[in-house]
C-alpha cells in the first residue's frame, strides 16, 4: 500500500490554494478548448506550454495546469459532438454517432449530462489505474539498460505508426523526419555540430516547443483558411438543451457499458502509441457488438454516448502511465506533456518516481481533484460552454496564431524561433494534406537525442558489438512486440483502425 501513502502525500501537495486555482483554471480552459471544433487537447496544451513555461511556474503547478487542460479538453470535446454533430476533437468523433441523434430527439441536455457522468467515471477509475499500475511498471523499468531503452523507443514508434496510421510507410517516414530534425545541433557526446549549415541559431538544435506549436496550432489556422466558408456551423445551429439531468433509470441501464468501456479505454490508453481516439473507437465498437440487440446504436441510444466518452476519458488517464513510468508517451497529447517535463529539466521514467515523487503524486492527486471540478463544471455550467461555440473561427483562429507566437517569443525572445515556427506550420499543413501523421514527428523530435544517446551508450558498453541490442530476454520481447505492433495491423487490416471520413473535420482533427 505504498501507493496509497504516496497518494496521500500527493494530496498534501495538490491542496494548496495556488494549485487548486491552477487546476480550476486548467479545467475551465481545457473544457473551452475541447469544445471548440478544431482545437483539441494537443493543440490546447501545445499553446499553453510556452505560456506556463514563461510564467516561471515550478514543475508541479505547471504540470497540474496542463494536465487539467488535458482532462478538461477530453470532457469538452463531447459538447459540440452532441449539439452540432461536429466533434470538438478527434477522440469525440464516436460521440457524434449517438449523441447527435439524441439531441435531435430533444434529449440534448440528457445526453450532455450522461456523457459528463460517463467522462467522470472513465477518468476517475483510470486515475486509480494510474496509481496502481505505474509503480509496477516502474519496477520493470528499473531493469532497463540502454539497449532496452533503445528497443522501447523503437516499440513506441512502431506501435504508434502501426495502430493509428492508415499507411505504415507514412508513419515510418514521419518518425524518421522527427528524428532527423532532432539531430540538428551540436552532438552531445563529441561536441561536433551536425546539420547546422554554419547557422549559429541552429547550434542549440530546434526547440521542440517551437516544432510542436508550429505543427499543431499554426497548421490548424492554415487548414481553416483552406476550408473557409465550407461548413459554417456555430452555436446558433445548436439544438435546444432541454433539461440537463440524467434519469436514474438511464444511469442504471448504462452502468454496465460504463464499466466495460472504462476498462477497454484504459487498456487502449496504456498501450504505447494508442491514445484516446482508439480508446473511444474500440469501446464503442465492442459495446455495439455486445449489447446492441435491437439495432438502436446510431439512432440515439444512451449507451452509444456512454461508451465512447467513458472510453476516451479512461484512455486519457491510461496514456499517462507509460509517459510517467517509462518516459515514453502513448499519445499525441502525452507527447506534448512530455515536452513540458523536458523543458523543465525533469526526465520522466522510473527515476522520476524516486527523484521527484512530489511531482508525480502531486500531479495524480491533482487529477482526482480536477476530475471532481470537471464534473461540477460540466453539468450545471454546460450552457456556458455551449455559448463558446458561437465564437466564429474568424476571431478564434487569429487569436490562436497570436497566442502561439506570444508563447514562443516569450521563451527565447528570438525572431529566428518565430520564423522556424511558421516553417513548421507550413510543414504541418503539407503533411496533413498528404495524410502523414504528425504525432510520430513530434515524438521523433522529442526522443531523438535520448534514443541516440541510449544506442551509443549500449554500443559503448559492448565495445561496438551490435548484438547487445538483442542481448537480453527483455530486449527480445520488446523487439518482438514492436514488430508485431507494426506488422499485425497491416494483416488484420481495417478492424482496429479508425475510419476517418475524408472531410475537413477528419483532416483537420486534432490528434489526441
Amino acid at each position: 500500500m505504498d501507493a496509497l501513502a504516496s497518494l496521500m502525500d500527493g494530496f498534501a501537495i495538490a491542496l494548496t490554494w495556488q494549485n487548486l486555482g491552477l487546476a480550476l483554471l486548467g479545467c475551465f480552459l481545457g473544457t473551452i478548448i475541447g469544445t471548440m471544433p478544431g482545437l483539441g487537447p494537443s493543440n490546447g496544451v501545445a499553446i499553453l506550454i510556452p505560456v506556463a513555461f514563461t510564467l516561471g511556474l515550478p514543475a508541479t503547478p505547471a504540470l497540474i495546469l496542463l494536465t487539467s487542460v488535458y482532462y478538461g479538453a477530453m470532457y469538452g470535446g463531447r459538447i459540440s459532438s452532441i449539439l452540432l454533430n461536429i466533434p470538438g476533437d478527434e477522440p469525440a468523433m464516436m460521440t457524434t454517432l449517438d449523441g447527435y441523434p439524441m439531441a435531435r430527439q430533444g434529449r440534448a441536455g440528457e445526453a450532455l449530462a450522461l456523457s459528463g457522468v460517463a467522462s467522470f467515471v472513465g477518468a476517475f477509475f483510470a486515475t486509480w489505474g494510474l496509481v496502481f499500475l505505474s509503480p509496477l511498471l516502474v519496477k520493470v523499468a528499473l531493469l532497463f539498460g540502454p539497449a532496452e531503452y533503445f528497443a522501447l523507443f523503437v516499440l513506441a514508434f512502431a506501435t504508434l505508426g502501426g495502430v493509428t496510421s492508415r499507411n505504415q510507410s507514412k508513419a515510418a517516414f514521419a518518425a524518421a523526419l522527427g528524428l532527423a530534425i532532432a539531430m540538428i545541433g551540436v552532438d552531445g557526446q563529441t561536441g561536433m555540430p551536425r546539420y547546422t549549415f554554419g547557422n549559429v541559431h541552429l547550434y542549440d538544435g530546434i526547440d521542440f516547443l517551437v516544432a510542436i506549436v508550429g505543427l499543431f496550432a499554426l497548421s490548424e489556422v492554415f487548414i481553416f483558411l483552406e476550408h473557409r466558408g465550407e461548413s459554417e456551423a456555430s452555436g446558433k445551429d445548436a439544438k435546444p438543451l432541454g433539461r440537463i439531468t440524467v434519469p436514474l433509470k438511464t444511469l442504471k441501464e448504462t452502468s454496465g457499458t460504463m464499466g466495460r468501456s472504462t476498462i477497454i479505454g484504459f487498456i487502449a490508453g496504456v498501450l504505447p502509441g494508442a491514445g484516446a481516439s482508439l480508446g473511444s473507437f474500440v469501446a464503442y465498437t465492442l459495446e455495439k457488438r455486445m449489447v446492441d440487440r435491437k439495432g438502436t446504436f446510431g439512432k440515439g441510444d444512451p449507451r452509444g454516448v456512454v461508451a465512447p466518452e467513458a472510453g476516451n476519458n479512461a484512455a486519457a488517464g491510461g496514456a499517462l502511465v507509460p509517459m510517467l513510468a517509462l518516459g515514453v508517451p502513448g499519445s499525441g497529447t502525452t507527447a506534448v506533456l512530455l515536452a513540458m517535463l523536458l523543458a523543465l529539466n525533469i526526465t520522466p521514467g522510473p527515476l522520476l518516481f524516486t527523484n521527484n515523487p512530489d511531482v508525480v503524486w502531486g500531479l495524480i492527486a491533482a487529477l482526482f481533484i480536477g476530475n471532481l471540478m470537471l464534473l461540477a463544471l460540466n453539468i450545471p455550467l454546460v450552457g456556458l460552454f455551449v455559448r463558446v461555440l458561437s465564437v466564429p473561427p474568424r476571431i478564434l483562429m487569429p487569436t490562436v496564431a497570436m497566442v502561439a507566437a506570444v508563447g514562443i517569443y516569450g521563451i527565447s525572445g528570438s525572431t529566428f524561433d518565430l520564423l522556424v515556427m511558421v516553417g513548421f506550420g507550413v510543414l504541418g499543413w503539407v503533411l496533413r494534406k498528404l495524410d502523414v501523421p504528425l504525432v510520430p514527428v513530434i515524438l521523433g523530435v522529442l526522443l531523438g537525442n535520448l534514443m541516440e544517446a541510449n544506442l551509443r551508450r549500449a554500443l559503448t558498453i559492448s565495445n561496438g558489438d551490435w548484438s547487445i541490442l538483442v542481448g537480453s530476454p527483455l530486449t527480445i520481447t520488446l523487439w518482438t512486440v514492436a514488430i508485431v505492433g507494426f506488422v499485425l495491423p497491416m494483416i488484420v487490416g481495417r478492424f482496429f483502425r479508425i475510419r476517418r471520413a475524408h472531410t475537413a473535420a477528419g483532416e483537420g482533427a486534432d490528434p489526441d
Partner: protein
Amino acid sequence: MSSDRVFGGVGLLLAAFFIWQATQVELGFSSDPLGPRAFPIIIGGVMALACIYPLIRPDESPDWPPLGRLLEIALAVAVMTAYSLALSEVGFLLATAVAAAILSWRLGSRPLGAVIAGVGISVGIYVVFHLILGLALARGPWGF
C-alpha cells in the same frame, strides 16, 4: 502524377541529402565506438525505405485547394513571417493588431470588423498576458 509519387521522390532526395550530410560530420579526437555519424545514417536509411512504398503504390491524391485558396495560405504565411520580423521592431501591440486584423479579414470578417477584431485580440492578449500574468512581450520604440 499523384501527390504521393511527388512526396516519395522528395522524401528520397531529402533522405539522400541527410545521409550525405551525415558523412560530412567531423569526427572528434576521442569518440565512442558509434560516433556522431551512424545514427543519422540509420535514420536516413529508414526515411528512404519509407519513401519507396508511396512511390510504388501511391494513395489517392488529397483534394488540393484551388489556386485562390493556396494564395490565401501563402498570404497567411507571409503575414506570419512579416509579423515575426516586425515584432521586435514595432513592438507587440501594433504588430499583433495588424497581423490579427489581416488574418481575421481573410477568414471572413468584414474590413471594419477585422480591424476591431485585430485591435481587440492585440489589446486582449496584452492585458491578459502582460498586465495580469506579467509575461514579457516585445517592446517597440514606444515602450509597448
